[in-house]
């Protein structure tokens, strides 16, 4: 009796293909960005800055400062499979195994002067950071600013938690608005660049449009079969992270949306309708060195159709027509980060998504590098299982440190999870 080929090692057999044709064009956008970054590096009158996630990159564009993004470049190093070498370099300098792998990848990438194509990053004119979604962001940029001898600006972003009163929230926002104006002064003093009000309004307008498009794409992910999975969206967020105010980003998302709409109209999905067995939600940053994991999930008939991580980059932005409203909107966006959510808000958020996106199971990536995203995951898992009766798999890995990924162990976990999902399809599980 021969083994059925569909039951062989499914985590090692699937072609790595993007679902959508338009998603494949992301490489053109990335190449354009890299070329600009390279040109910028050689022209002394061009200025650049390192920025972290959670800060509005639109401000840099409005100030005519070219944004460089260490986290984004660390993802590229991970996907290009060079991050381990960079991490080991940082560890040889004394950074511990427990320090964030994005930070160590950045330290290695900068010191070793690797090509931008594999995640290299140039020395900026200044760095700007905040401790809002990640405490390491502050220390990381402080250390790198000192090592590179460049100025640093740190936004002090208060956290909104349960019980934060309305009046306190207003004070928080006013506090941030003051800091944004301080930042304009800092940039002018550091680089001589002033805010171009007309240009920043255009950037904000484009950025709002880009977020609208992203949310429309997400709306379509509620469909069965889902037209787009994480294997696509993990690359699609690039324009939201770095190029939110640019026309070419809008064009990219418009093409993406058009193709998604065509898929939905035809009843097509990333998987065929009869193939789509399990709809999953994935919490956390992906394992960038193992992107094929998300393609290979599809071998089990599983599609990831919602990720809080990718959704958060395209949170709703108001359309503004004056500087004051725009700064106000930036302050609000800095205060509204999903990573701020306390457990009860996070659980409510998950429950809402699970219902609206017809989710059958949840994957929680306990990312060894990221305390903010992992703390509370066991409570989240238990609450979802008990209240909704759907299975949750929590697994420990890392976003750019491949040493944290055990191939065989992951395979056993995923296969076992699929066996549980199979039985939960016919019957709600009682936890």
């Amino acid at each position: 009796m021969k083994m059925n080929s569909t039951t062989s090692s499914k985590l090692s057999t699937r072609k790595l293909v993007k679902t959508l044709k338009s998603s494949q064009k992301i490489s053109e956008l990335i190449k354009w960005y890299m070329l600009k970054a390279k040109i910028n590096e050689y022209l002394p009158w061009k200025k650049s800055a390192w920025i972290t996630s959670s800060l509005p990159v639109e401000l840099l564009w409005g100030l005519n400062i070219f944004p460089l993004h260490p986290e984004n470049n660390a993802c590229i190093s991970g996907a290009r499979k060079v991050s381990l070498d960079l991490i080991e370099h940082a560890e040889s300098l004394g950074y511990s195994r427990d320090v964030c792998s994005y930070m160590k990848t950045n330290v290695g990438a900068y010191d070793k002067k690797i090509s931008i194509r594999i995640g290299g990053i140039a020395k900026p004119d200044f760095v700007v950071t905040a401790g809002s979604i990640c405490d390491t962001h502050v220390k990381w940029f402080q250390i790198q600013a000192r090592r590179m001898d460049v100025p640093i600006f740190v936004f002090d972003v208060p956290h909104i938690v349960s019980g934060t009163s309305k009046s306190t929230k207003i004070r928080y926002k006013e506090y941030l608005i003051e800091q944004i104006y301080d930042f304009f002064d800092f940039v002018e003093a550091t680089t001589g660049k002033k805010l171009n009000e007309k240009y920043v309004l255009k950037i904000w307008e484009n950025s709002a449009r880009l977020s609208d498009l992203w949310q429309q794409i997400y709306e379509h992910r509620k469909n069965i079969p889902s037209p787009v999975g994480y294997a696509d969206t993990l690359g699609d967020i690039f324009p939201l992270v770095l190029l939110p105010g640019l026309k070419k980003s809008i064009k990219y998302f418009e093409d993406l949306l058009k193709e998604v709409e065509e898929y939905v109209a035809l009843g097509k999905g990333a998987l065929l309708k009869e193939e789509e067995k399990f709809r999953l939600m994935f919490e956390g940053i992906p394992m960038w060195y193992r992107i094929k994991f998300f393609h290979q999930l599809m071998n089990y008939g599983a599609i990831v159709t919602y990720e809080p991580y990718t959704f958060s980059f395209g949170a709703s932005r108001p359309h503004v027509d004056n500087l004051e409203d725009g700064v106000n909107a930036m302050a609000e966006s800095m205060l509204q980060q999903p990573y701020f959510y306390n457990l009860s808000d996070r659980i409510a958020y998950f429950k809402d998504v699970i219902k609206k996106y017809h989710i059958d199971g949840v994957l929680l990536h306990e990312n060894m590098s990221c305390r903010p995203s992992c703390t509370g995951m066991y409570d989240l898992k238990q609450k979802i299982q008990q209240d909704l009766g759907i299975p949750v798999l929590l697994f420990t890995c890392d976003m750019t440190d491949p040493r944290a990924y055990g191939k065989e162990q992951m395979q056993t976990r995923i296969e076992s999870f699929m066996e549980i999902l199979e039985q939960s399809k016919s019957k709600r599980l009682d936890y």
Partner: protein
Amino acid sequence: MHTVGIDIGSLATKIVLMKDGKIKALLQNRSLHNFTAIGTQLFNQILKDNNLTSDDIGNIYSTGYGRHSISKLTSNIITEISAHARGAQYFYPKVQGIIDIGGQDSKVIKLNPKSFMVIDFQMNDKCAAGTGRFLEVMADALDIPIENLGNLALQSKSPIQISSTCTVFAESEVIGHFAQGTVKQDIAAGIHNSIAKRVASMVKRIQIVEPIVFCGGVALNPAVKIALENELKLKLLVPKYPQYIGAIGAALIAKERLKNGRV
């Protein structure tokens, strides 16, 4: 009708022959480096010992770390989680939780109290602490056969505490205690308490309740059972062939699926 379950673990391979859902024969051997060879060899041997040919076998399921390596022989695979759950039910039909400690992994499985289906599981992560390998390394450090480690621990009056969860550092601690003249019994007891604490944290994470079956090769060691019971403050049931539970489960699932027309 005969079915076979083969559990290819990282350290040992176990095979079970069942007839109409009852155990007919059991065999095991070290897995060594060639999963395909050991799986095939044990299969041929169990057939020969029982005067059967492969045509007499209705369905063959593999499970365990090397479950994908004998695809030419088997009809299908099943994960260790499902196999252990089904195997434990063979001995204790109302089991609600399973603790399996094997050579290089340990797992905790939670079953639904009404449907008795697997609803959750927890496995150790890329670390030998809390596995059979941990005990092997420690027995080696104490220079005693692994079979004697459990009974030695049971003679202790004052167990030492091992603070490191890392197998390599724990080994250094053991050697340090040995050098200071601590008696082997107390060190052995400390080693068992250490593994129990590690596994107990996994149990608590998914909150399994009694009746709980303790299986895997390590369940043959009485001191681990006692240490775990003390740590968890509940009773564990050790089935007759604890190391064969995965293989028994695979053979049972093979039978049930065959009955339902599936390979």
